[in-house]
Structures are given as structure tokens and as C-alpha cells.
């Protein structure tokens, strides 16, 4: 039982960490200085959330792995983040559309998890939900601004949406881990989030004059099960380089 829960917590933590890592690559290079602040803020929130999920996962596991052991000493195939968050930053539209597609899901998920029968999960979800409410507001605003901005920004936002869409399918696909925890009232059924997500996405796309790709398009999957895209290995090589070079050191 506990094993499924650990796996589930790693999925939550890994998605938050990898997106936080990606977003933080922007800092110092944002198109507007206010965005250096905003991007750092989102990255900080996500990394903070990852720490909470990892902390709980490590405790349940009881093998002495703390948040840093989980973040820095697992390989790509042991990571459980969704594929969406490991996609490259690309241009600002790619980054903000990725953020928006994730936020809309993350928000619905955390709303659900704040009702979890596991009080620790519920508590973390409540805290994270406050942050993610702001994330979603911000990324929605940007998608609208870019979609309904200039011709160039519209083209870029639409291209980003078309490109990233294929990674949204697995957000709603349940596997045995989900099923087990849903049955216990611990987790949320991913499929149940889809309607709310699609509703948000369609509303924002409409305001942004963007066209959401067909809901039944071909979808990639595998991230939650540890089958990633070629990008994750590079992210981890960089992120883990220092702890890996100094085994056992503390920082």
C-alpha cells in the first residue's frame, strides 16, 4: 500500500521539481524584468512543493532517503514526472503554454487532493493550491496576451500549443498506482480531471484566439512510469552533477 503511495508522491514531486528546474533556466534572461521575478517565483513555489512531496515520500519509505537523495541520486528511469514538464523551454510562448497546460491540470489535481483521506497529502495540497492558483492566473493571462497579441506572438503561441498537446494525454491516464490510491480515497482519479481541464483550456484558448488541437489527437505517454523523452537525461546530468561528484558530502 505504502509503496503505491510513495510512487504517487514521487510523481507529484518529480513533476514539480523538473518544471521548477526548467523554469529557473530563464532567470536573468526573461523578456521583461518583471518576468525574471515572476518566473523565479513560480520556480520557487514548485521546488518548495517538490520538497514537501519528497519529504513525505522519504518518510514513508523509511530507508533514510531525504529530499536531496530523492532529487539528486535517482536516474532518469527512476523519475516519475509527466513528459510535459521536461520539454525544452524554447521561446517564451513555448514556456508559457507549457506552464498553462500544466497549471490547469495541476490546479484541478490539487483541488482534488486537498480532499484526500491522507491528511498529510491534503495539507500539502492546500498549501500548494494557493500558489498554483496564482500560477494558473498568470499563465492564462500570458497565453491570452500572446495569442491575442501580434501576428508573430499568435503564431508562436499556436505553434507551442500544437507542439505540446501530445504530452497532455498522460495527465489523465490512470494506471494501477492511481487505481489503488483512488480506491483508498488517497488520490484523485486522473480521468476525472479531464473535463475541468479541457474547459479551462478551451476558455483560455478562445480568449486567446488560439485553436486547441483535437482532444482525440495521438498522445505520448510513459513519464509516470519512468519512460521519458531524451531531454530528461540532460536535465538530470546538469542538476545532479555536484552531488554526484562528491558522494556523501553535505552542502
Amino acid at each position, binding site marked *: 500500500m505504502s509503496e503505491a503511495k510513495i510512487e504517487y508522491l514521487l510523481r507529484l514531486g518529480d513533476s514539480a*521539481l523538473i518544471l521548477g*528546474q526548467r523554469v*529557473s*533556466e530563464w*532567470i*536573468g*534572461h*526573461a*523578456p*521583461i*524584468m*518583471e518576468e*525574471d*521575478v515572476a518566473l*523565479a*517565483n513560480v*520556480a*520557487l513555489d514548485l*521546488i*518548495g512543493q*517538490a*520538497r514537501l512531496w*519528497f519529504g513525505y515520500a522519504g518518510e514513508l519509505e523509511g530507508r533514510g532517503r531525504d*529530499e*536531496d537523495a530523492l*532529487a*539528486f541520486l535517482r536516474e532518469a528511469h527512476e523519475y516519475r514526472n509527466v513528459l510535459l514538464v521536461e520539454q525544452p523551454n524554447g*521561446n*517564451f510562448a513555448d514556456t508559457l503554454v507549457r506552464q498553462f497546460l500544466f497549471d490547469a491540470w495541476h490546479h484541478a489535481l490539487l483541488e482534488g487532493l486537498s480532499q484526500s483521506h491522507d491528511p498529510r497529502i491534503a495539507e500539502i495540497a492546500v498549501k500548494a493550491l494557493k500558489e498554483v492558483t496564482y500560477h494558473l492566473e498568470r499563465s492564462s493571462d500570458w497565453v*491570452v*496576451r*500572446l495569442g*491575442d*497579441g*501580434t501576428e*508573430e*506572438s499568435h503564431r*508562436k503561441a499556436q505553434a507551442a500549443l500544437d507542439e505540446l498537446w501530445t504530452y497532455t494525454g498522460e495527465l489523465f491516464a490512470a494506471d494501477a498506482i492511481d487505481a489503488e490510491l483512488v480506491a483508498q480515497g488517497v488520490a484523485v482519479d486522473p480521468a476525472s480531471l479531464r473535463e475541468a481541464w479541457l474547459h479551462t483550456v478551451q476558455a483560455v484558448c478562445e480568449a486567446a484566439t488560439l485553436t486547441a488541437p483535437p482532444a482525440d489527437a495521438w498522445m505520448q505517454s510513459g513519464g509516470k512510469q519512468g519512460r521519458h523523452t531524451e531531454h530528461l537525461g540532460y536535465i538530470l546530468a*546538469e*542538476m545532479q*552533477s*555536484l*552531488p554526484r561528484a*562528491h558522494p*556523501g*558530502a*553535505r*552542502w
Partner: protein
Amino acid sequence: SAQERAFQERIDAGIKIEPKDWMPEAYRKTLIRQISQHAHSEIVGMLPEGNWISRAPSLKRKAILLAKVQDEAGHGLYLYSAAETLGVSRDQLVDELHAGRAKYSSIFNYPTLTWADIGTIGWLVDGAAIMNQIPLCRCSFGPYSRAMIRVCKEESFHQRQGYDLLISLCRDGTAEQKAMAQDALNRWWWPALMMFGPSDAESVHSAQSQAWRIKIFSNDELRQRFVDQTVPQAEYLGLTIPDPDLKWNAERGHYDFGAIDWDEFYNVLKGNGPCNRERLRARRQAWEDGAWVRDAAIAHAEKRAARTAQAA
């Protein structure tokens, strides 16, 4: 002139000058130069530290570093706002930076080569910055003084975090970690001392700036204070300051220290530091790559305003 006399009397009486008040053109210009240079330093300063966000070795340290770099962006923003009260726009100031006409603190032209550099920057660079800036909390220009109060509060926090990082490496760390810290100190010590600017004998503008209370202490005074404060901190870490001439002078009640290589200082200032070109290029690139985003934001705001107007 009478106006100028009255202005100087207000300053001497410790009354703040506010943007709407009359002020001599030279006072305005000097302040714009000083404040914008400071703002640019915050913005360019994001780069050397940002270089290690993706490689921070623990999640806690990563969060601390992210928050610090975020604060720097924030400081840049207040400082540009303070400068804007003097009748110049942020875009104009940023153009000057990108064109290579405006200065920023030379210290950011050195590379961050190891994780220990992040701690060392917090300890020494923020330490020196605070030393320079605390007096400016009492400077004569209201918006600058208020910005400095806020900035100093956050920076002293950063300095403590930097020092704490070094404690982890030096007192609780492995031999390699301590060596990393010593190497960082070796590289950053002299550049940090140079942050206080040329020695008083060489320094231009100082007298007038002191009369206007936009410079409170002399460069050499502040540098001495910094050395006196820092030496015991290095001792606590068990690190050796890379200056064979450094020793306590009981008579003066201060540490004596070796001669600074001003050639290096002027060389870096001239653009020959290890990272001058890269720093400026990174900022320019961010600006150029972001043009379409700023255009989109403006276009959207205009569309929205037009729609609102039409609806009304």
C-alpha cells in the same frame, strides 16, 4: 545662486530632497548615474549567480539561491523606479547599458566557477555592497534612500546565507569542499576590495558627492571597515586570505593589508575582465529575444483598451 544655497541648506539640515523639489542639474545627473549604475549591477549581477541555480547541490540551497537572484531582479526594479523619479525612463537607462555606455559593478565580470563562489559572493560581494549601501540609507535623495533601506535589509540576509553556505563547506564539509572554498576566496578577495572604488587620492567627484550627501564615507574608509569585519569571519571558516601583507595593526586598531592591483581594476573596467563580453551579450540577447513578447503585451493591452472603449 540662492536656489542652490537653499538646496544645500536643506541637505545640511538633513531634510530629504524629493523628486518634485528643485535640484541642481548636476545633482540630478550624478544621482541618475549612480542609481542606474546600481540598478544595472543588480540586473547584470543575476547572471553569475544564476549560472549555478540549475546546479545547486541541494533543494534547500537551490531555493535560497533562486530567492536571492529573484531579490536582485526586484532590487533592479526599485532602483530603476527611483531613477525614473528623476525624469529618465527605464528603457533609456537599459539602452545605455546595452550600448555599453553605462557601467555596472565590475565584480560581475568575474566568472562563477564553483559552487563555493556562490557562498563567497554572498559573503564578500554582498558584504561589500552592504558596507557601501548602508550609509546611503541616509542619503539626501528620498526615493534613493528609501530604496536603499529595503535593499540593505534583503542584502544582509543574503550575506548571512552566503556565509552559512561557506560554513557548510568549511566547517562541516569534506577536504575537497573546503579547498573549493579557499579557491573561491583566492579568486574573489581582491575583486571584492576593488568594489569600494579607487583610493581616495584617485577618486573623482567625491567631494561634491559628499557635500550633497549622496556619498557619505570615503572609499578607503569603507574598504578598511570591510577588511576589519571580514578577517575574523575568514578565520572562523579556517580560510586564509590571499594577502601576505595582511596583519593586525594594534596601533591603528585596524588590519593593514597589501597593495591593490589597480591595473587589473582598470582593465576589467575597460572591458577586459573574463566575462565582460558575455555578461553584456547575455543581457542584450535577453532583450532582443524578448522584443516580440513586449510587442505582444503592448498590442494586447491596446486591443483590450480599444474593446473597453468601444463597449463604453
